[in-house]
């Protein structure tokens, strides 16, 4: 038996497509956890990255936070949170958000910093308020990089959200953990395949978002 056979067996088993433990349920749970974590991380990382990038201050502090955030093992953090808080969404969300904030924060900061200073100078000289300089001059030009930071974060969240299963929550991690426990390798391979597929779908979503949101003037010249 090889991996492909496992996968085929898993996906062709009709019972895997219904009910509490069915693929649609687990997939939507996984997407929901991931989206929530991404929104939280973006709510923190985007504004802080934009403002620090705009004023060009705090780069060193950001680099430190980013390194610390990357060094923290997500699983270790989950166990710690679980011991501390117990069951529930919170101990799952914290490691996911901690994982996702650094790429969003650092990329956004760098993206705004690297915007050509002369349009920014021209905008100020024309009497544009600072908030508009940031949102209407810097952000549209920085957008491709900002989106790439969000994309990196999203992919990491999708693949790490499997840990939710450790604290008895759902998501695609269920198949992997239950499968390993029950020595049901079809389940393990099927779950892993679904996570990989979801990660690819995330890439596609971000590609489409960039096509829609980034001005053709920025896309072609960048």
């Amino acid at each position, binding site marked *: 038996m090889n991996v492909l056979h496992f996968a085929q067996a898993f996906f062709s088993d009709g019972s895997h497509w219904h009910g509490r433990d069915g693929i649609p349920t687990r997939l939507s749970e996984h997407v929901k956890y991931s989206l929530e974590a991404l929104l939280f991380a973006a709510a923190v990382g985007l504004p802080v990255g934009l403002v620090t990038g705009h004023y060009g201050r705090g780069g060193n502090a950001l680099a430190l936070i980013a390194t610390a955030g990357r060094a923290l093992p997500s699983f270790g953090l989950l166990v710690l949170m679980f011991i501390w808080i117990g069951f529930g969404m919170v101990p799952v969300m914290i490691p996911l958000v901690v994982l996702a904030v650094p790429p969003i924060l650092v990329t956004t900061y760098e993206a705004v910093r690297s915007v*050509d200073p*002369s*349009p*920014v*100078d*021209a*905008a*100020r*000289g*024309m*009497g*544009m*308020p600072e908030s*508009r300089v940031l949102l209407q*001059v810097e952000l*549209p*030009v920085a957008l491709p990089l900002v989106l790439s930071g969000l994309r990196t974060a999203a992919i990491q969240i999708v693949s790490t959200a499997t840990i939710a299963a450790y604290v008895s929550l759902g998501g695609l991690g269920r198949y992997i953990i239950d499968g390993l426990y029950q020595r049901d390798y079809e389940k393990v391979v099927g779950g892993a395949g679904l996570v990989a597929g979801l990660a690819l779908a995330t890439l596609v979503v971000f590609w489409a978002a960039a096509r829609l949101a*980034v*001005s*053709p*003037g*920025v896309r*072609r*010249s960048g």
Partner: protein
Amino acid sequence: MIRIDSVTKRYPDGTVAVDRLSLDIPDRAITVLVGPSGCGKTTTLRMINRMVEPSEGSILLDGRDIRQQPVNTLRRSMGYVIQNAGLFQHRTILDNIATVPRLLGWSKQKARDRAAELMARVGLDTSLAKRYPYQLSGGQQQRVGVARALAADPPVLLMDEPFSAVDPVVRKGLQDELLRIQDELGKTIVFVTHDIDEAVKLGTMVAVLRTGGRLAQFAPPAELLSAPADSFVEDFLGADRGIRRLSFFSAGSLELQTAPVVSVDADAATLAARAEAAPYLLVTDSDGRPLGWSEPDGLTAGAVDRDRLLDHGRPFAPATDSLRAALDGAVLSPTGWAVAVDGEGRVVGVVSQQVIGEAIRAAHTRVARDSAVKAAR
């Protein structure tokens, strides 16, 4: 009027960029700030729209301290053009130009109509309206920069080396365009450059700054060229200021001679009569356009060999050109005579180096007398 009153700018690191500068910038004219790199031109310009705050002194706009109004209100009343245009790459040309009207709260449609009008004014084809900046040449981008600065019709225009990043031919086009626009709109323009030729060409008044941000001389360009205040200004003006100064004297008063001019169709009698007039004759075609010079002996009535004529050099137009153009024509002509033409390129006469030399001396005497009169008053 913009009055710069004893302004000093000391940057936090201790650099004194501008040192007790006082300047009265006249309305509806181009005032050029010129000087070597680092002499404080940009700093001075940016103090006018408060992109830089003076350490000492004040700047008055029509008698009011510029700090008396909100900074963004002040800036929206002053167009600002910078070296690389600084266009917004994510916006179309039309929306770039519409920026300040939109900031002022105009409707999108009104702002765009105005932007389209300005594209025409600065010589941009309206077919470029929907393009993005990266699809334009450097010269076109600079025109967009000027249009954007003019969009809300501000009374003041601040320009920091706007044409220095384009090649000389395009630069000349942009300069001519600016002079034409200025003729129509009559803005109060402060123009920064490090190119003295550009300063002399564009400026109604020219302020020469020296390193350390001190004013070396503030004068109309002709006066700058004829009477530099000191050796710094003289060196900055360059070696051929005497020649360049001739740009300010019209060639209209030159006494032209028509006797040495003959048509290709001239008959033998005419040729013989004209041969007496001058050592060389200028041959024109039957429309009166110049063909070239010849010694009288080389001409046979009815059979002029055009290939054997000497090149007539570059003609000048007395109605619009300066003594500099006339002298240039004479110096480049193999005979030492310059050819004068009308607006259609038809010969109106010829003039020798000697006559041009006398006109130059007369012009200098006139200027010296005028400034003596002015000084006496």
